[in-house]
């Protein structure tokens, strides 16, 4: 390869890597804008959980058809990185198919596997486009996906088609060039798909073939580098964050709500002034959450991990019956607001003020009040996101900081306070049932 191209490659690669690193670090910083939450215990169990749910995609297989299609794309993505590694080495050193002479027959097998999975991924990609745009599956066409999220989803699928087509073209022309005995195109063995697809390029001259092969090669690597930079702005970020998000799962029973130690201590000392309470190291600024910075880092990582598949919303009893609440929208809103806060911090520093907040500007009380806390959304999520936990934190803010409750709830609170029951009964009558039943 010409030295100029090697330099161009190194510059393109370096620039793409630098840009992507910057954005990923910004995301990391944004996640840590959240309040502390300790999820560092039980390391062995966490690794196991991550292997099962992120690597093993256990939850995905509750819906077998999308699970298998998704598996094709996922495995092909993982394995194609071996070829990407080779492309990078070739690009920088000027070699061609660097691994081929060292690996021999295993190289043939490996590239054949990549080809097979690429074809399967291509089929899956078309199937996904079909489900989204032709079948118009309900969960892939709900209101919160209008505009950018819908385009984002289709763009990712189109990008995948471009990348897979590039790799298949590259191999097919390479194989044909080997047959023609072109210089530098050394023997890769009989590649599973290329040995047939190379026939498409019969009758084309060596120079043209080399041009096609090189174009496909550049298209593939530039596509990958572009994708790397696109991912952090897209729902596709789940391919990375699914792993840490599954590792930092909350192991407590789904029914357990987070305690608020500040209020617990206040109530304890109010009821018994001599009570000994543990002081709180980092008391939250507000009761419950108004904005993303009132949530914990796990809530924020949840938001970045969401790939907007909508299994949560499809299972949500409120959404099914036509209420405004969509758990997926809760996650999308949290991410959008967090990105906005991140930008403001970059522009105006950490003490910026834009007079906006997650509650009110993104998520309304009507949505929050429709939740039955049934945990269906949490149960469904393939990457262990809890929209419910965010909903409950926002509810806490509406009740305790804004005193904004439906009239019936205020009545219920009064009853609970005065009668120790949510209905208006005299507590002295609490045992009357024994004479009635």
């Amino acid at each position: 390869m010409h030295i100029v191209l090697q330099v161009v490659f190194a510059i393109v690669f370096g620039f793409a890597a630098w840009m992507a690193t910057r954005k990923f670090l910004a995301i990391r910083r944004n996640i840590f804008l959240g309040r502390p939450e300790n999820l560092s215990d039980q390391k062995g169990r966490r690794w196991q959980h991550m292997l099962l749910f992120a690597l093993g995609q256990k939850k995905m297989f509750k819906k077998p058809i999308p699970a298998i299609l998704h598996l094709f794309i996922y495995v092909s993505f993982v394995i194609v990185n071996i070829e990407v590694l080779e492309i990078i080495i070739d690009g920088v050193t000027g070699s061609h198919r660097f691994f081929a002479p060292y690996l021999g027959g295993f190289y043939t097998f490996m590239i054949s596997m990549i080809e097979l999975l690429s074809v399967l991924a291509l089929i899956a990609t078309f199937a996904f486009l079909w489900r989204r745009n032709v079948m118009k599956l309900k969960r892939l066409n709900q209101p919160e996906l209008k505009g950018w999220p819908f385009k984002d989803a289709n763009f990712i699928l189109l990008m995948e088609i471009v990348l897979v087509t590039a790799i298949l073209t590259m191999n097919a022309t390479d194989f044909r060039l080997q047959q023609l005995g072109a210089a530098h195109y050394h023997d890769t063995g009989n590649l599973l798909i290329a040995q047939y697809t190379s026939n498409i390029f019969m009758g084309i001259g060596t120079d043209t073939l080399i041009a096609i092969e090189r174009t496909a090669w550049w298209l593939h690597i530039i596509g990958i580098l572009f994708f790397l930079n696109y991912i952090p702005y897209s729902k596709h970020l789940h391919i990375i964050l699914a792993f840490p998000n599954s590792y930092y799962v909350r192991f407590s029973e789904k029914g357990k709500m987070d305690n608020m130690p500040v209020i617990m201590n206040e109530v304890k000392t109010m009821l018994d002034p001599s009570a000994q309470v543990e002081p709180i190291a980092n008391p939250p600024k507000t009761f419950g959450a108004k904005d993303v910075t009132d949530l914990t880092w796990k809530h924020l990582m949840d938001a970045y991990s969401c790939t907007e598949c909508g299994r949560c919303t499809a299972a949500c009893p409120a959404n099914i019956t036509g209420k405004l609440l969509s758990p997926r929208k809760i996650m999308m809103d949290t991410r959008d607001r967090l990105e906005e806060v991140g930008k403001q911090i970059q522009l105006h520093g950490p003490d910026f003020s834009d007079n906006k907040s997650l509650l009110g500007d993104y998520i309304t009380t009507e949505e929050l009040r429709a939740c039955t806390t049934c945990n269906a959304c949490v149960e469904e999520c393939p990457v262990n996101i809890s929209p419910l936990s965010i909903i409950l934190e926002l509810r806490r803010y509406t009740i305790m900081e804004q005193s904004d409750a439906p009239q019936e709830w205020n009545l219920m609170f009064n009853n609970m306070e005065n009668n120790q029951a949510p209905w208006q009964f005299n507590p002295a009558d609490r045992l009357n049932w024994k004479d009635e039943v």
Partner: protein
Amino acid sequence: MTENLKNVPTVAELFANGESPEILFWVGCAGSFDDRAKKITGAFIRILNSIQIKFAVLGTEEGCTGDPARRAGNEFLFQMLAANNIALMNGYGIKKIVTTCPHCFNILKNEYPELGGNYEVMHHTSFLQSLIDEGKLTVQGGAFKGKRITFHDSCYLGRANQIYEAPRNVLAKLDGALTEMKSCKSKGLCCGAGGAQMWKEAEHGQKEINIERTEQALEVKPDIIASACPFCNTMMTDGVKIKNKEDEVKVFDVAELIAMANQLMA
């Protein structure tokens, strides 16, 4: 052969005699005040009396666990109610609690410990299963032979605490035909009452959640919809009424079905 409940000891009475109960039956607000849920309480008491276990209730000393307040967002109110209950139960040295309400069960089991209330907490369906497994309770199947029974999972028992099999195992003893709805167990659809929805009008939408769930239940053409939660029971009973099916389809708690099978109540 329904008899009046003569024997409902309170923890205070036992305590006054220097005794303490083997189990505390946590009745809950619905079980104490709601007319439909009181029947579930009665059924469970009759089962407890039939197995000669030393139990007691807190009676007028019991207060709401605070579940609807906490889920609505009122942490102060929850903490107040919880602190009172914990002080009371710790004062009595309560070790083991059984409750007929999954919301009480969840909060007592999962949320009271970090507030200083540590007890062994069981939902009554798990308790009934353990009684059957230990041979302390035998269920006479005859009354429900051949009846189609479908079990509606309570969110706070199922997804919240992974208890799916205990109520089904108990129901299996009735010799009926257990049929599952299209969404059951971890996919069970909520009845619509949780998260303090019980005490407010639903938000604007196209349908009530309990109607959606009742329709799912009616699809399997059951004779009986079995529930394990007083709130689910109310929602499903209302749903069946609105669908004009109350003559053909009855909604019963697991405890009621066992009490009826053993002729402890009509």
